[in-house]
């Protein structure tokens, strides 16, 4: 899985590409921990390059969502591929997480 960081104002953006599975989910946990500096509250996680997500990936995303919420921040996921969307729907994640089609829409909402 490729992980890239960027920043838009105070909003931290993490883009994921490839597979998020039992092997790579811990890499995402680590990347989030690095991005979650004390001044960081709002996050966008771009998933348009993610082709595969298993329950290990879902658990990592859920953990991140809890940490963001605990700091009264906001988290938006964007660009779900068909494969990832299906797993989000079957697990009910689409009802508990904020999802936008594009990064731009997410940034506008967080602005």
């Amino acid at each position, binding site marked *: 899985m490729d992980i890239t960081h960027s920043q838009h104002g105070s909003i931290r953006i993490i883009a994921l590409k490839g*597979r998020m*599975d*039992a*092997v790579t989910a811990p890499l995402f946990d680590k990347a989030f921990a690095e991005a979650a500096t004390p001044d960081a509250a709002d996050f966008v996680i771009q998933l348009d390059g993610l082709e*595969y997500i*298993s*329950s*290990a990936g*879902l*658990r990592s995303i859920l953990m991140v969502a809890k940490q963001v919420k605990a700091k009264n921040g906001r988290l938006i996921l964007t660009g779900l591929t068909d*494969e990832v969307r*299906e*797993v989000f729907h*079957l*697990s009910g994640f689409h009802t508990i997480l904020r999802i936008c089609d594009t990064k731009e829409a997410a940034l506008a909402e967080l602005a």
Partner: protein
Amino acid sequence: MIRVEHLSKRFGNLEVLKDINAEIAQGEVISIIGPSGTGKSTFLRCLNLLDQPSGGRIEIDGQDILAPKANVPALRRRMGMVFQSFNLFAHLTVLENLTIGPVRLLAKPPGEAMTKGLELLRMVGLAEKAHSFPDELSGGQKQRVAIARCLSMDPEIILFDEPTSALDPTMVSEVLAVIRRLARQGMTMAIVTHEMEFARDVSTRVFYMDEGLIYEEGPPEQIFDHPQRQRTRDFIGKVRSLSYQVTSADYDLYALVGKIEGFCEKHLIPPRPAHGAQLLAEEALGILLSHPGPHDIHLTLAYSEKQRHLELRLDSRGPPGNPLETADLPDDLALAIIRNYTEDIGYERVGERNCLRLRVK
């Protein structure tokens, strides 16, 4: 007519037949099917002692043909054999091929043998080739002559060892038509064949051989439509499979993913089930590995070309119980994924192993 008990055959260290038990009654047509190298031809060759069995017992009408005092030539004459490679005498005409045995071995008068030979050649549709030499015939014609030659010895049973395997596909049907005709006439036959439709039509019983055993036997409807055992099902369903062994939670997920991707690509499996197979493998292994070790998990991904089913099988050593139901999991996510990507989930306990079958949706 023929009773086989605990028949075994070794070639050096190679145990080809392990424990064959079978009975063939008069008038039966037995098709012997199974993967290559499982001892089908060796079984036939042991029946008429072309290969000497390593152990066991073969009785013909109550006579033990492996007994030291058995009259093997006389017993062997009661069984005809038709080979894949015809084995005709190239220097004799077709008719001479049919008369040499009856005249020399059965002491029949030449005139009588010739009349019978011509009658048999008419029966297999080759009377006009009576004075041709084998080299002048096509493969299908040679095999029909071989069948006629076999019949010229008045056998009580005919053993066919892949009679159409060496033939051009266009010639298979002419040979099968002759065998079908013999079946209708009540000839007792045992036929090793890869022609499944033929075996289904012509047989009274089918022996499915695997692992050096008659792994499953039954009427053609059972073997071809409702096979009872896994290997029979795989063979009949033309199942292709890949296997992967997992012994620890640190298994190489990407080696497994690579194998699954390659397998799905090779068998032209559509992207949705191919993706599902990867997810199911990761989630099911995660659950199995959450049970206390040591771990011994055998994963098989099986694709039936006939039914177009993709199935993930995981058999694991452990206490009895469906591992999906007995696992102590932190949440339902893995199970939700498994339920979503499967059409059917099956579990059975086999020996000391839990066998889980996930049919990919």
